Each structure stands twice: as structure tokens, then as C-alpha cells.
């Protein structure tokens, strides 16, 4: 009997596996700081301390004050609150939300729900068109604009500093979605009004979303609130999870630089290796100005679901933006907006521990799988 093929997890875009430092921190906080941070007893005070520490870590990482940091329940919750709260706070100005065409679907959904939504086109590598961005942001009635630091599927960095300048000039508050970037690359510490992120993206608990609202921002809670988190997110916070999230972020900031450099090189090797060994493949995204850990490619004539399942059998867990493989009838809006091939899509997200050996093995395994599928469908 042979052992099953050990799985190599290359789907960190759905969540970085929890770092052991974060898991340890969670256990410690569960023991000591499980109380309601609003209570005056010892457990409550310990919880309040842990919550303060967590706010300080996030605040320092993004260039904000600790009392501007809010913890929500997920990336989507943070993004919905960011968009809806600005739309409410600036309702006298208008209800238009400007985004790029490739923002996360939860931002696009929140923008559509807010009133009118303008999605600005991107180029073939995913960079927003700054001329069109300027025109959209400058149109009267714009409540807020939203841009990603880096795209969650293809990794391309947006020219967000330039986009932010445009917003500043037009006096339109900017939501900076740092979900795929926080902890992994140095962020600009100013130029935005609201920042969103998610602990699951950097090896913290998936149940912790991050929302940072700068003091001068005209944001109003678009839901009923209470006394927790200065009236900006209701309900007693899950302190052990929040504390673990802060430890994970701190761990990236302290030790993640070498990991990021290794990941950047591994993605370069993957990109070159795929182009060399697989004919008729569309490798997307900016090859240089990108986050270190993401790569997306699409294989002509191949069905994304079949490719994902064959790679899983060969021991590699990957994501796909093709229709049917993402429990959707429609292909990834990111790929479609970039003019990239949407079928046969594979989305790679390297983890903290991904090795060069694993990437070499992936490059050995992929070409015969592609050839086999193409032969089966009569496209070889």
C-alpha cells in the first residue's frame, strides 16, 4: 500500500494557514483574557489590555492611531462597513461609489448597494486607468472611492499613491483595501481615509476583519451600534481571536521580509517555468510590481474544474477563477476585466512555508496533466 500524496497547499489567497505563533497566542489569550473587555473584573481588564495591544500593532502597521482601529468579523464585513458608512456619512454630497473594475466582489456588491457605482477600467495587467479614475472621482456626487493596494487574484499593485492624490485633490475620501498586502509589503502610511484588511490573509484567524477609520472622516455606522469599539462595530469583541490576529501581523512585520523575498523569487520561477513548459498559456498580472506570493495563469482549451481536480490528485491545492470551479456560473470578473483567458484558470497563493522543491515539483507535474486533458477534449 502506498502512502497518499502529501498535499502542498498553494491556495493562500483563500487564507494563509494559521501561523503557529498566532495559534499559541490564541491559546494563551483564551486562558487569560477571555472576559468581556468592558467589565471591571480581572479577566475583563486582561481582555481590555490584549485588545489595546492588538490595536497598537495594527495602528503602527498602517500609520493610524490605536483608537482608529476597529475589528470586525471578516474582510467582507470590513469592506461593506467602509463603503456603506461613507455613503451614509456623505449622503448630502451624493451616493456614487467609484471603484476599479477588479476590486473584490464584496466591495463591488457594497458599491452597487450604496446607490450608483462607477467601476473604472484596468489595463491588460490590471493597473487602473488613472485618467478615467480622475474623471470618475471628479464627477460631482461621488461619496467615496475605493482601490486595492494589490489585486487578490493576480497580485498586481495598483498605483494607489497616485490614485490617492487624485482623491485628495477632489476631496473624495479613499478606501484603501489592503487585504492582500498588509504585512507582506510596506504600505503608504497616509493618503487614505478608511483602510480594510483581514487577519486570515496573513495567518491569523479568519474570523477577524480589520477596519481603520481616520478621525476626520465623515463615516457613520450604517447599522445599529452599542458601546463596544467606540460605537463603530457592535457586539462584544472576540478578544483571543483579535489578539492572535495582531500576533500574526507582528510576526510578518518582524520575520516576513525574508519570506516575501523568497516568495517573490519563487513566483518568478513559476512564471518563467510555466511559459517555457506549457504551450498556449496566458500568464496574467504585472510580473514585477506585485505582491510576492500570488500568480494566476490560464491554460487554453482546458476546463478549470478538471485542471484543479487533477492538480489536487497530484498533491497540489490551488484555486481557480474559471466558471463552475468557483461555485459560480460566471468566470472571475477580474480576469474578464483584464481581457485574460477565463477558462483553464489556476490561482496560486504561496504560503509562509512554500519551498523551491515544491515549486519544481509543481512545474514537473503541470505539463503532463495539461497535455492529457487537451488530448481528452480533442484539442492537442
Amino acid at each position: 500500500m502506498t502512502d497518499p500524496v502529501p498535499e502542498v497547499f498553494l491556495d493562500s489567497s483563500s487564507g494563509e494557514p494559521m501561523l503557529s505563533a498566532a495559534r499559541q497566542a490564541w491559546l494563551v489569550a483564551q486562558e487569560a483574557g477571555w472576559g468581556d473587555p468592558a467589565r471591571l473584573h480581572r479577566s475583563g481588564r486582561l481582555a481590555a489590555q490584549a485588545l489595546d495591544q492588538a490595536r497598537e500593532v495594527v495602528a503602527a502597521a498602517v500609520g493610524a492611531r490605536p483608537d482608529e482601529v476597529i475589528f470586525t468579523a471578516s474582510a467582507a464585513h470590513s469592506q461593506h462597513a467602509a463603503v456603506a458608512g461613507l455613503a451614509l456619512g456623505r449622503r448630502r454630497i451624493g451616493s456614487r461609489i467609484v471603484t476599479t473594475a477588479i476590486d473584490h466582489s464584496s466591495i463591488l456588491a457594497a458599491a452597487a448597494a450604496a446607490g450608483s457605482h462607477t467601476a473604472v477600467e484596468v489595463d491588460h495587467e490590471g493597473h487602473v486607468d488613472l485618467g478615467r479614475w480622475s474623471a470618475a472621482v471628479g464627477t460631482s456626487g461621488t461619496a467615496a472611492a475605493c482601490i486595492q493596494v494589490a489585486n487578490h487574484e493576480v497580485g498586481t499593485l495598483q498605483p494607489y499613491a497616485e490614485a490617492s492624490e487624485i482623491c485628495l485633490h477632489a476631496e473624495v475620501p479613499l478606501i484603501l483595501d489592503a487585504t492582500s498586502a498588509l504585512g507582506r509589503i510596506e504600505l503608504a502610511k497616509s493618503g487614505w481615509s478608511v483602510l480594510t484588511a483581514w487577519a486570515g490573509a496573513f495567518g491569523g484567524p479568519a474570523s477577524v476583519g480589520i477596519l481603520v477609520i481616520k478621525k476626520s472622516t465623515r463615516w457613520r455606522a450604517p447599522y445599529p451600534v452599542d458601546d463596544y469599539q467606540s460605537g463603530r462595530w457592535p457586539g462584544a469583541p472576540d478578544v483571543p481571536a483579535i489578539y492572535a490576529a495582531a500576533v500574526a501581523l507582528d510576526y510578518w512585520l518582524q520575520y516576513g521580509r525574508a519570506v516575501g523575498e523568497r516568495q517573490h523569487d519563487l513566483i518568478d520561477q513559476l512564471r518563467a517555468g510555466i511559459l517555457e513548459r506549457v504551450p498556449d498559456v496566458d500568464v496574467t498580472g504585472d510580473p514585477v510590481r506585485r505582491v510576492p506570493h500570488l500568480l494566476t495563469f490560464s491554460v487554453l482549451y482546458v476546463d478549470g474544474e478538471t485542471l484543479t481536480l487533477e492538480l489536487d490528485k497530484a498533491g497540489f491545492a490551488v484555486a481557480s477563477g474559471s466558471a463552475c470551479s468557483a461555485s459560480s456560473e460566471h468566470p472571475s470578473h477580474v480576469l474578464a476585466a483584464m481581457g485574460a483567458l477565463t477558462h483553464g484558470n489556476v490561482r496560486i497563493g504561496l504560503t509562509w512555508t512554500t519551498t523551491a522543491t515544491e515549486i519544481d515539483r509543481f512545474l514537473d507535474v503541470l505539463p503532463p496533466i495539461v497535455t492529457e486533458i487537451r488530448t481528452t477534449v480533442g484539442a492537442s
Partner: protein
Amino acid sequence: MNEAVSPFKGLSLDCRGMKCPRPIIEIARHIAEVRIGAAVELLADDPAAGPDLAAWCRMRGQTLIGADPPRFLVRRES
């Protein structure tokens, strides 16, 4: 788009009801049946057909000259 003719008299591939990548595989298999410079009509109603046909043309050096889903026209260039 002004080159589109209707009803189409050349090679037409009816791929309605098929999921991508099947319509793309079909046009790849049949495009060599027309002379260079001639057009092929593809009928496809899968939501991915539009972006994927455009991407296929870019990757394979063909030209998408009409896109009015479910009707697409591709000119053979090579």
C-alpha cells in the same frame, strides 16, 4: 463591427448550450477550414465565451471583428 454580415453565409459554428472551453476548442478545430482573411461565425451563449474568444484571438493571432452575444465573428489571419 461593420464587417458583420447577416445572415452569415460562411462557416458558422453553433455552440449554444456548450460551456467554455468547448466553444473555443470548436473554433480552434475549424478555423483552418476557411481561407486566410475570411470570417467564421461562432454562436455561443456561455457567459465566458466573450472574454475567452477575445483572449483566444489575442493568443492565436486571429481578429475578433464582431461581438454581439450570442453571435461572434472571427477573421482568420494565420
